[in-house]
Structure formats: C-alpha cells, structure tokens
C-alpha cells in the first residue's frame, strides 16, 4: 500500500541576516521517512533536535527565515501522491482540516479566548463539511458526545474549562472532519499525568476508529512507548534511528537511543542512571561526520569524518550509525 506521507531528502534551514551578520541554522538536514495509513508515527528528540521544524515544514506552516532548501514532501490523500509545496494556496486550504489537521501544544493558541467554543468549531470546520448549519452543529455534538464531552461545553468560554478539558476540545476540533492525517505537536506536555493518560487514550481510540495516520511529536519517551506504532529518533536535525516501537525499545541500535531509554528513572528500580556528557551541538555549526560523535561512547575515527548512511539493518529498523553497521551493540 502507498504510504500517506513520503518525505525524501528534506532540508529546511533558517537563513537570517542581522545587521550584516549572516546565520544559517540547519534545523532539518536530509531527512527521509514515510508514514503509512492507519498508524501513529512518533518523533522523539530533545530541544534543538529539529523536530518542531520538521513538523512545521511537513504542515507547510513555514515562514521566512525558515526555508525549504531541498527535498520533497508528498501527501497521498485520494488522488495519488502530490508534492505539498507544488500546490496552490487554494488547493492547500481545501486539503487543510479536511485531510490534514493539527493538535497543538497550547490549546489556548487554537481556541479564541473571547469567543464561545462553538465559534471555534464553526470557524475551523464549517466550510469543510459542506453541511447546513443545523446539521453541522448536530455532527459536532455527536462527535463531542463520542469523546465523552458534554454538548453544553459548546456554549462555554475556553477559560471556563480545565487544561485537560481544553486539550480534549482541541482534539475534537482537529478530528471533527475525520481527517486522514493529524499532526500532534506535544499535545500532552503541559498536562498533569492523570489527565495526560486520558488524553493519550482518546487520541489512540480516535485514530483506530477513523483509520487515520498521526504524526506525534514529543520528547517524552514513555509517551512514545505507550502510544506509537513506529518511532523515529532525531538528533541535531537528522533522523538517527527508526523502527517499530517495540523493537526500538527492546533493541535500540543507535547509542543515543539506547541512552535515552536507559537514563529514564523508574519507580522501584534503584540502579544508577547517568546523563550524557557534553551538549547537543549548535545547528549553526554542527560537528562534521556523525553529529553525535563528540558525545558518543562508541565513537570511532570514521565517525568524525563521514556522515553515517541510514541503513535498514532489520526489517523496518533503520539506523544511521557506523558502529551499528559494524554490528556493535550500544
């Protein structure tokens, strides 16, 4: 089956000039991945790993100084794969929300704070549904009821709802048109753990019912372990490892992934955990070769010179690491 999203060789740089000082930040540097229909694909990475830039680029929500320098992004909704950046503004707005929607980190950025929730639904979704207003509102109420939300919240203001409730409303908003592809940017990071678990469960259930694909971005490895079907790990603007979630957690091949998993503290586990030395590299002047080599316990000579290619070592398990290619386990 055709993947719903194919990203190949994508490069997106911030290109800036401040009073004559030119700076180029390679936030996304040569990323190739595809996302299948009916799956949750997770992207994990630290701050400045380029994960936010990647999803901005995939959503074509970029503004200067961020520019796409190379590569392509193709979505296949119904009419075969089409390059997102070749579409006109009209074609794009026909796709947005109907086929491609977003769940953001701050629900307050989506919901207008001075208008009732109902208006947000009308503003975002009404023209994509092609229904008369009473039928549309009925659909919205049905959808809310399906998500265990009272229809009465349509008449409330965002500030009257708790953070968890607001985030569930934004999820309802993003899914009311039954889109094929949903981009979720740290949707649960600001939530308390009890609420977080409910919200994640809701995202999972909706995805399965609709058969949609979700691109889920967070830095929290435990969330990825519990939610995603496949997982990509980003480091310093590059994808370093990608595998089905369980395989990735049980047998990580990249030393960075292995560290991320092992350093997580666990209740009831007293073995000491360690942080990595060094710091994530500056994307304005990344180190040559493998960008992880200055902090890597397995670093070899070749790592300082050559960028490791992304190779599929096991079925569906890709990794970009010279050591892993030689069969050295992290």
């Amino acid at each position: 089956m055709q993947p719903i999203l194919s990203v190949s060789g994508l490069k997106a740089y911030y290109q800036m000039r401040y009073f004559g000082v030119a700076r180029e930040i390679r936030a996304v540097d040569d990323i190739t991945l595809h996302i299948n229909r009916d799956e949750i694909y997770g992207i994990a990475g630290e701050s400045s790993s380029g994960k936010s830039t990647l999803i901005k680029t995939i959503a074509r929500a970029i503004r200067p100084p961020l520019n796409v320098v190379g590569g392509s992004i193709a979505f296949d909704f119904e009419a075969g794969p089409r390059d997102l950046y070749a579409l006109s503004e009209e074609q794009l707005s026909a796709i947005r929300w109907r086929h491609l929607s977003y769940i953001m980190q701050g629900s307050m950025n989506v919901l207008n704070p001075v208008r009732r929730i109902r208006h947000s639904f009308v503003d975002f979704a009404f023209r994509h549904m092609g229904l008369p207003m009473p039928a549309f509102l009925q659909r919205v109420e049905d959808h809310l009821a399906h998500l265990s939300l009272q229809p009465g919240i349509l008449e409330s203001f965002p500030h009257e709802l708790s953070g968890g409730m607001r985030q569930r409303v934004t999820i309802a908003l993003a899914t009311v048109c039954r889109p094929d592809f949903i981009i979720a940017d740290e949707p649960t990071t600001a939530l308390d753990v009890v609420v977080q678990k409910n919200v994640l469960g809701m995202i999972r259930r909706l995805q399965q019912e609709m058969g949609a694909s979700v691109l889920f971005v967070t830095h929290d490895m435990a969330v990825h372990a519990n939610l995603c079907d496949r997982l990509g790990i980003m480091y310093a603007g590059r994808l370093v490892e990608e595998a089905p979630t369980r395989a990735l957690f049980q047998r990580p091949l990249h030393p960075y992934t292995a560290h991320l998993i092992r350093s997580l503290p666990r209740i009831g586990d007293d073995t000491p955990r360690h942080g990595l030395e060094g710091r994530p590299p500056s994307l304005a002047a990344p180190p040559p070769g493998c960008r992880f080599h200055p902090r890597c316990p397995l670093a070899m000579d070749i790592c300082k010179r050559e960028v490791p290619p992304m190779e599929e070592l096991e079925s569906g398990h890709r990794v970009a690491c010279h050591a892993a290619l030689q069969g050295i386990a992290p």
Partner: protein
Amino acid sequence: MTKALLELRDVSKTYAGGGLLSRRHVAAVSGVSFSLQAEQPEVFAIIGESGSGKSSLARMVLGLSAPSQGTILFRGQDVTALRSRRDRLAFMRQVQPILQNPFEAFNPLTRVDRYLYATARNLAGASDQAAAEAAADGALQQVGLSLAELRGRFPHELSGGQLQRAAIARALIPRPALLVADEPVSMIDASLRMTIVNLFRDLRERLRVSIIYITHDLATAYTISDRIVIMRHGEIVESGNAREVLAHPQHPYSIQLKESVLSIEGAWNKETALVSSGNREGSRL
C-alpha cells in the same frame, strides 16, 4: 530540644480572586506542616501536579511571600520576620533557591560568571575579585565545572545542563544548609537530566546540605529523595519514606497518581496499556 532546620506549622496561603463584586478566596496551600532536622540532611521531595500549591509553598519557604496563616521557622526563627537587609543576607547564606528554567534564571543579557562573583562578594565575604573568582571556581568544581569553562560566557553559549549546574554552584557558594529546588530538571534535555538529578543526591552526601526538591515526576522523586509528601489542592495527602510511599501508596489520590505514570515496561502490559492496541504487537509494515 534541638531546633529543627526548617519547620512549617499549619501553613496556609490564600489568594484573593474573583471580580470586582465577587471577592472570593482561593486557597493555594492549606494546613501544611512538616519539619526537616538539622543533624540529618535529606532530600525532601514535594510532589504535586499543577495547582497543588507546591510552588506557592516553595516561595513561602524562601521568604518570597508570606503565609496567610501559620508560621515557617528556619532554625527557630520566623522567616517572615526577616525585615532588615542584614537579616535577609544572613538568611540567604543559609537558604538558596534552584529555579526551574536555567535559561530564565540567568539574565540572557548578562554574563553567567557575574552572578557567581556577586554571590561570593555579598554572601561569602569575598573582599576582592580574586577571592570572588576563587570562591566561584571552588563551587563550580563541586558540580563538575570550572571557572575556565564559564568565564565571560552568556547563557545561550552554554547548554541547559551546564547552566543548571552553574546555578547550583552559585547557590553553593555561601555554603547553605538548605537548597530549595523547584522543578530543576523539567526544562533540561533528557540526555542531560540525570546528571543534575544525581548531583543533588551527591551534594547531600558530600556537603551535607538538605534539599527540598519540588517536582511532578514520581520516578525522579523515587530516584533521589529520602522522604516525600504528596500534595493535592494545597493539602498534604500522604507523606513518609519515599520508597515506601511510592512502592505502596495508601491514599486514593497517590494510588491514582502512581497508576497514571506511563512507563516503558507498562506499554506492552495488557492491563496498563492505553487501549487494546492489537496492531502494535506485530511488525506490521
């Protein structure tokens, strides 16, 4: 009777809320009591979710806001009674904060080392620049850094982990008896986080400094703390030895909190998984 290092007696904090006509009072903290002993330094974790009042509590312990009711005694002295500058400085020599976001705790427009010199001069009796630099370097060595790495650097030139360690070093310069750390690793990247967490435990052992560690993360609290309290809506719902409370929570809220923590092991356990996710088992390609 020996004086406790820190003692909170029935501390409450209410904020006036509501609009012009409807004045209502919101309790951020209500009836909190606990004490830390001077002779036995410990890592004391305060666990709570947003709105539990844990940060309000930290601000009161630091003397940044006064409790509405109850008293906070530091070595037998009321923290809110410290009015004069001399008393405040004496208090700061004993109690120091570690703040949440190191990129915020250091003014982005100021060189990082300047804060260490200022602390050395004002609180550790360094009379000239050489003495201040020596004190700063000594404290930085304690956290695995050196002045040479930091001299003249701006915050953005350092990683979050380095900055937070510099913040801890700064707090250590006056050789305090108590550190109050409010979510000190929540803004730090995962690969650097454990370095900071381990450092707190290490400091308690090496420097015999007590630490109040405020967090929402049960797993981190389990890793570093000796005693914990779990707070909800401004009240303590459960307290005790960290290992015992987190292994066998008694209060319904504590139990719910522990069960909600997502873990990697739990991800493939049928009972704890988010939903029955049949297609996650195989390698569906």
